[in-house]
């Protein structure tokens, strides 16, 4: 069966969609004995990320076992994680 999404590192709190996902889809990702099932709460385009757990504001979004930026608002499980609710901590001469 084709996996709907992929988890790259067991420390991650997001997974990446391998296909377009719709609200209500149940998506299971597994890696090294860790298995997480998430109900998609928002349409997620292919290649985009969704939250595997609730991420609090200013908490790191973890992918590849590392922070890829901080949440700019609370992100609930199954929601789209992207530039609208997280931001890079790099190259911010304005901050």
């Amino acid at each position, binding site marked *: 069966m084709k996996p709907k999404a992929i988890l790259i590192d067991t420390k991650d709190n997001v997974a*990446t969609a391998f296909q377009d996902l719709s609200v209500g889809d149940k998506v299971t990702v597994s890696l*090294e004995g860790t298995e997480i099932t998430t109900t998609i709460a928002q349409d997620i385009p292919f290649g985009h990320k969704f939250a595997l757990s609730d991420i609090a504001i200013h908490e790191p979004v973890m992918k590849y076992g590392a922070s890829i930026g901080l949440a700019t608002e609370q992100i609930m499980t199954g929601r789209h994680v992207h530039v609208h609710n997280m931001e890079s901590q790099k190259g911010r001469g304005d901050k």
Partner: protein
Amino acid sequence: MEFQGYRRKSGKVGIRNHVLVFPTVVCSAEVARMISEKVPGTVYAIHGGGCGHIGEEKAKVIRTMVGICGHGNVASVLLVANGCEVVQPELITAELDKIGQPYDVVSVQEDGGTPGCIEKGTKIAAKMVEEAAKIKKESIPLSELMLGCECGGSDAFSGLTANPSLGIAADKLIAEGGTAIFSETTEMLGCEEVLANRALNDKVAKDIYDAIDKAEARAMRGGVDIRGAQPSPGNQKGGLSSIEEKSLGCIRKGGNTTITQVVKYGETPVQKGCIIMDATAADVMNDTALLAAGCHVIVFTTGRGTPVGSPIGPVIKVSTNSVLYGKMKPNMDVNAGSIVDGEGTLASVGQEIFDKVVACANGEQSKAEALGHHEFDIHFDMDV
């Protein structure tokens, strides 16, 4: 684990037994090619360097040439000089003497122009092939194997399938005591802390920051906004949310172990384990640098597809998606797209890549080798 390879007088090991015909300068490149094409069993590596270099760039070109000519995969080397070039053959042979690498030199200017040089070079190369054929393989531990990790023609799957799988293979080789090198410094922007946190010590951490700072400064000198514009609108549409995410997808190809050393373009590491090379992201020039550093084999992940190989060692291609695999199957050794198809996992493809590396170390040809690919070029800056 062990593989069947070649032990050289230099103390290096090899997985190929090449007789290399190598021009010291672009001017004699075609003569080198003509010699090699007349002598079955030889390979040639032609390039655009050898003259007009000064200072650090000259040192870089010589270091790279010495690394290639003295490589463990090379049984002996015939240097083909023009005669008046900056990189005089003695600059290379002095280093080959130090490690006991067999070589000979012919010169277009001294040996009768093109026909005379070809005649003399052909005889020498034929004798070298005879001598090389006498060298027997022996068992060598995987701890002496060096893997180069490269990505090029990347796509949205690169950071999800092929690069993390290659990283798993790199970690496996390092667990055997071996070495994996990854480079492409401009693609490390945004990962400074992540990489520095993996550094063996403060010196390595500082070298990581310095290398990435320099890459950024080079981009700034070119008048390019390399951070502010990242990830690009196209990247964002594809789902990348930050430069950290984009860069992490690139560096994952080098695995996740302690970074033991940062080396310059074409520089041979003294450490084993995971090594960063501060080198260009231009594919063929990067392959050359990884090989010059001593890598025996390169694994090259690609989403768009590329045919390139190397005259010095096998280049193993890993497609990031099955559409590419279908289109370029004759060029692809492993399909990481199987992860998307549900037929493989990061772990299983990582194992498949590792197994392919070991198979190639044992003499199996990669697709690029079997197809006769021997792309080669040296990176240098002619502005100085």
